[in-house]
């Protein structure tokens, strides 16, 4: 590169693009139009007006629709929430109808059996109690489990935000261990948050929610078990489940509370329908 070329070229010649942007922000065509004014025609004016109206409308529509997505997503959220509430109400209504129908069935059964069938009715009631079909009451234990205090914020947030294992959050397996411990300690009937456990019950999880018989539970988890309170408490504490709860409390700060109660009332699970299972004929009982 020669000396002459270096002197005539500005130092920042390679940055003309940035200089253009910084130093000449105004569209140069304004200056050009001012230097050579166009004669105004009626058609030109009308076209300008029409284009200006169109541009203005496009501008305001764009601005308002840029703000739309948030509204739409919250709209969808509200819609889903409404749907959940409506469906939950429906389920509750049908459960209530189910309970009323079960009571009616019982009454009708007793009427049909007549005076001679009192023993049969009592037997049906006993069997229903054992199966968990009818409500039960009696003394027992109430175990209350809740997530660690620090885990609350995380649970309230986006369920997909952190997929990693949360130490202070209860899982279905924790509930299963506690329930199994109570059965082992001599519990006769168990309900979790008002969901009676039967021979066909399952404690599962879906996402972060714990399900009992496909019904999602809400914290805190209250496990009510009918049985001899003292014997159950001793059996539970000395068993594997008691040690497990103790370690959850110590290590993960899970809140656990075990209290005896003189009178627990457990709801019935309603009529159990077995479609495939048949009683074995050779046993002779039916």
């Amino acid at each position, binding site marked *: 590169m020669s000396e002459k070329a270096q002197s005539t070229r500005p130092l920042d010649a390679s940055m003309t693009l940035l200089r253009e*942007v*910084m130093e000449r*922000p*105004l*569209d140069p*065509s*304004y*200056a050009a*139009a*001012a230097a050579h004014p*166009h004669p105004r025609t009626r058609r*030109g*004016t009308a076209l*300008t*007006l*029409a*284009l*200006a*109206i*169109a*541009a*203005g*409308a*496009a*501008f*305001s*529509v*764009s*601005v*308002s*629709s*840029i703000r739309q*997505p948030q509204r739409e997503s919250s709209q969808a959220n509200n819609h889903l929430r409404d749907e959940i509430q409506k469906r939950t109400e429906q389920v509750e209504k049908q459960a209530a109808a189910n309970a009323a129908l079960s009571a009616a069935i019982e009454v009708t059964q007793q009427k049909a059996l007549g005076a001679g069938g009192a023993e049969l009715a009592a037997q049906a009631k006993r069997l229903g109690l054992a199966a968990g079909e009818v409500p039960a009451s009696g003394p027992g234990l109430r175990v209350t489990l809740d997530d660690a205090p620090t885990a609350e914020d995380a649970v309230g947030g986006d369920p997909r935000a952190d997929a990693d294992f949360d130490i202070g959050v209860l899982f279905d397996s924790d509930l299963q261990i506690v329930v199994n411990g109570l059965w082992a300690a001599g519990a006769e009937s168990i309900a979790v948050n008002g969901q009676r456990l039967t021979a066909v019950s399952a404690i599962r999880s879906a996402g972060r929610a714990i399900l009992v018989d496909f019904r999602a539970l809400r914290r805190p988890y209250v496990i009510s078990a009918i049985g001899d309170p003292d014997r159950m408490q001793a059996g539970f504490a000395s068993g594997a489940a008691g040690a497990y709860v103790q370690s959850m409390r110590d290590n993960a700060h899970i809140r656990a509370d075990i209290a005896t109660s003189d009178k627990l009332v457990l709801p019935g699970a309603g009529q159990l329908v077995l479609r495939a299972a048949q009683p074995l004929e050779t046993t002779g009982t039916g």
Partner: protein
Amino acid sequence: MIAAIGLLVGVIAGLLLQPTVPLWLQPYLPIAVVAALDAVFGGLRALLDGIFDDRVFIVSFLSNVVVAALIVFLGDHLGVGAQLSTGVVVVLGIRIFSNAAAIRRHIFKA
């Protein structure tokens, strides 16, 4: 002047009618709005400089919007939509700020 009046009428009409924008146009709107703002500030500065021209204003407004949308479209198809959008926003932002500074000098003499 006719362009400014027309723009105002259009803005009000758009706000009142609230038509829905087709989904395929949605990604281009933010950049188009910034480009339109650039044209508006440029027009305002030209007005204060005394060289405002309806035709230039409208043409610059529309071409700004179309070019901005085109850049985003191209970027989306090349897989660098976000980066190109950022570049456009930076350039237009600088222009808007310089024009706003010129307008400020005109109005406040400072």
